[in-house]
């Protein structure tokens, strides 16, 4: 477990957080710019000196202002990936990578050079200088460099923010591999719900220097009282596994925990039993009182109405549904809601027009 | 408006011109050793003739270079006779205006009371670290100092301890700040009315060095200056002679 409490007071901004985060997997610090997420991350790293702070990482005490404990940055077993890679301009890629690696002592070198290089796909870049790399390549080197310190905690500050769409899509698979192959807990700062949905297990929503909500990603994204539900791309992320594949019609069959329901998605084949996530956007979900037969929509599932809230525009409402234990969000017009006479607890059929498989 | 302004300018210029007819300034290059005496003479000179004396102090060799390159001096009071003679040969002076205005005397001086005995034995004892003189290549008093050491047979013994000031003034500076325990300075720098003004000194006998004949001359730039002529006449007069002698010079 990661326990972090920080109090920071600048002239125009203050941070006041008390977080309990899982000691494994990826935890996202999510919020708008100015919400304090980078400041919070820097406090965890020790780069910002909080006026009062407490930090315990999987049993190790790194900071406690009450007893005067403050491990300086270079003595914390962490890796930090900055927003703009920040490779050392005077060193080649290889020497950037070994910078931290050779400073941790042979006994601590759990992550090896060959492994990190292969994980991030940078073998062909080793002898280049940083100014001869593209933005995406630089970022991958930065991630590998941080990994090579065999950290007990990996901190990533919006690592994809400075990249264009193509580069982002190029790197995301590497980040997902990190998540799957390495057992290092990650604190991931982002303002992009897509990245969070794709990579994080746990998320903290920060607003104006305070933690407004903290919990599993699936749960927070589906909460109607949080701003994510009001976004244009609001939706749920479901942790699922591959149940089968129809080779004739190229349809992937996905199941999720605690349910017998199945989602069908047009997709390339994936190995049976493989764990992955998929996203269902609220605007792709429509509701019907009776089970629609003879429809081109692939996924029709029985759901129960849990809650409802007005959307920011006056024409729509957001409805939170329960799908055998997994939440689902639907955005329908107020008109339709009145027509259907929607009530809490009502049993309905949800039609899901489109499902996005997140690797 | 402009008419009033131009009238004002004319009036001012006229008053300047008028004042210059009746009371001139004379630009004088003065060898450093004569600094104190010329300052004493300047006030009397102005009172008696109405002319103002504007003096620049420095090393004789330096003044030579400056004069050759067009410096605006009208009268030159050198520390030797060779330099004014050279200028005369090279046509930089008013012919016939050269004369000896003083004969210099050397003193071995220390800022510390009782350090220098009245016979200069302290030199032979050689118990000091630094002996200051003026640069012999540029200052006649420095040259005279080396002649004294040669005459006393102390050149080799004291050569490693010599420090050179660029002028006799800087030599004095080295000694007065204590950086050199003692040094050869112009007597006029430390002597007035028969007494050494501070510290301790040996009045070096004139037979230990070539006489330091100090010549004055009117330069080409002062050819038509009434004030320049007045200064030269004044320096030859009895009043000036008394002042000059009071600083230890011979005449």
């Amino acid at each position, binding site marked *: 477990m990661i326990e972090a409490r920080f109090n920071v007071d600048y002239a125009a901004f203050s941070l006041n957080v008390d977080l309990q985060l899982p000691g494994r997997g990826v935890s996202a610090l999510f919020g708008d710019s100015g919400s304090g997420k980078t400041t919070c991350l820097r406090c965890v790293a020790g780069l910002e000196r909080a006026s009062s702070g407490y930090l315990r990482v999987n049993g190790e005490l790194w900071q406690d202002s009450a007893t005067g404990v403050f491990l300086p940055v270079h*003595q914390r077993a962490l890796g930090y990936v*900055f927003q703009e890679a920040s490779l050392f301009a005077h060193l080649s890629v290889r020497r950037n990578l070994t*910078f931290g690696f050779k400073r941790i002592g042979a006994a601590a070198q759990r992550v090896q050079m060959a492994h990190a290089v292969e994980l991030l796909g940078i073998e062909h870049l080793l002898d280049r200088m940083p100014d001869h790399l593209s933005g995406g390549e630089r970022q991958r080197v930065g991630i590998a460099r941080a990994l090579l310190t065999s950290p007990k905690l990996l901190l990533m500050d919006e690592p994809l923010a400075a990249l264009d769409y193509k580069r982002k899509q190029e790197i995301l698979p590497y980040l997902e591999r990190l998540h799957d192959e390495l057992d290092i807990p990650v604190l991931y700062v982002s303002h992009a719900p897509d990245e969070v949905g794709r990579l994080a297990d746990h998320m903290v929503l920060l607003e104006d220097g305070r933690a407004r909500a903290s919990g599993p990603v699936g749960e927070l994204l589906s909460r109607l009282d949080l701003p994510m539900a009001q976004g244009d791309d609001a939706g749920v992320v479901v942790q699922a596994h591959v149940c089968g594949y129809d080779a004739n019609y190229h349809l992937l069959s996905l199941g999720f925990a605690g349910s017998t329901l199945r989602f069908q998605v047009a997709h390339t084949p994936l190995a049976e039993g493989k764990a992955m996530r998929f996203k269902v956007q609220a605007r792709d979900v429509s509701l019907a009182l009776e089970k629609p037969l003879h429809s081109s929509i692939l996924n029709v599932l029985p759901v129960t109405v849990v809650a409802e809230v007005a959307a920011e525009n006056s024409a729509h409402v957001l409805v939170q549904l329960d799908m055998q234990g997994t939440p689902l969000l639907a955005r329908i017009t107020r008109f339709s809601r009145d027509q259907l006479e929607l009530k809490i607890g009502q049993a309905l059929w949800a039609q899901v027009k489109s499902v996005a498989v997140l690797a | 408006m402009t008419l009033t302004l131009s009238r004002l300018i004319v009036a001012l210029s006229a008053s300047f011109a008028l004042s210059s007819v009746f009371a001139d300034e004379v630009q004088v290059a003065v060898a450093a050793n004569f600094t104190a005496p010329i300052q004493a003479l300047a006030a009397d000179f102005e009172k008696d003739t109405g002319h103002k004396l504007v003096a620049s102090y420095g090393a004789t*060799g330096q003044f030579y270079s400056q004069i050759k390159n067009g410096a605006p001096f009208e009268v030159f009071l050198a520390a030797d006779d060779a330099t004014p003679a050279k200028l005369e040969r090279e046509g930089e002076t008013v012919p016939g205006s050269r004369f000896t205005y003083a004969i210099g005397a050397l003193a071995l001086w220390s800022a510390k009371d009782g350090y220098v005995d009245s016979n200069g034995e302290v030199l032979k004892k050689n118990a000091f670290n630094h002996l200051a003189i003026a640069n012999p290549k540029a200052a006649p008093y420095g040259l005279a100092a080396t002649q004294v050491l040669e005459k006393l047979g102390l050149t080799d013994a004291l050569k490693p301890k010599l420090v050179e000031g660029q002028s006799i003034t800087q030599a004095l500076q080295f000694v007065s700040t*204590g950086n050199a325990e003692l040094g050869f300075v112009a007597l006029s720098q430390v002597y007035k009315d028969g007494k050494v003004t501070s510290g301790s000194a040996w009045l070096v006998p004139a037979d230990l060095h070539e006489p330091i004949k100090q010549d004055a001359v009117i330069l080409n730039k002062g050819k038509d200056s009434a004030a320049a002529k007045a200064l030269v006449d004044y320096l030859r007069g009895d009043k000036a002679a008394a002042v000059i002698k009071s600083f230890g010079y011979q005449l």
Partner: protein
Amino acid sequence: MSLTGADFAAIWLTLQLATVTTVLLLIIGTPIAWWLARTRSRLKGPVAAVVALPLVLPPTVIGFYLLITLGPNGVIGQLTQSLGLGILPFSFAGLVVGSVFYSMPFVVQPIQTAFEAIGDRPLEVAATLRASPLDTFFSVALPLARPGFLTASILGFAHTIGEFGVVLMIGGNIPDKTRVVSVQIFDHVEAMEYAQAHWLSGGMLVFSFAILLLLQAKGRKAVVR
């Protein structure tokens, strides 16, 4: 060539002085430059002003105060005497002290600028990669500031070569110890030895020009990279 043994001695002495001064300034000036680049203390302004003083003070002022302070009645003079070192004026060591003051801003400022240009980020990165502050200084800050060090060395060296006013005030014109080229030229002029004055001055002119050309070329190379 009408240069005498004394002239060559002056040249050799000048080169020695410039080298020793530059090396000393690099050693002393680097920590000062680092502190000035990184500190947020209220002392930064005053310290920077003191370092920059020789840029605006006439060398004779520096030389004058050095003459007093290093002399037997001054603070430092009394210290050196109590340590059995005698006094510093009229010695090579005294010239080094004077030159260090006189050329300090020419060495400290380029290094300081180079350190400032690095910014915080590379140093933070190094810390997250387990480098202690001292380690970070040597493995990241110094290499990144290398162009500044080169400029500082060249400027410090060239500036000391040309030093005159300070040397004049505290040197005493002693052959092989304090008679540097600039004073030698001055002496030649005063003694009307114009040929030698021309040779030495011309030499210094060519040397300074070559130095500046070198600086220009270095600067351009850095941009092209």
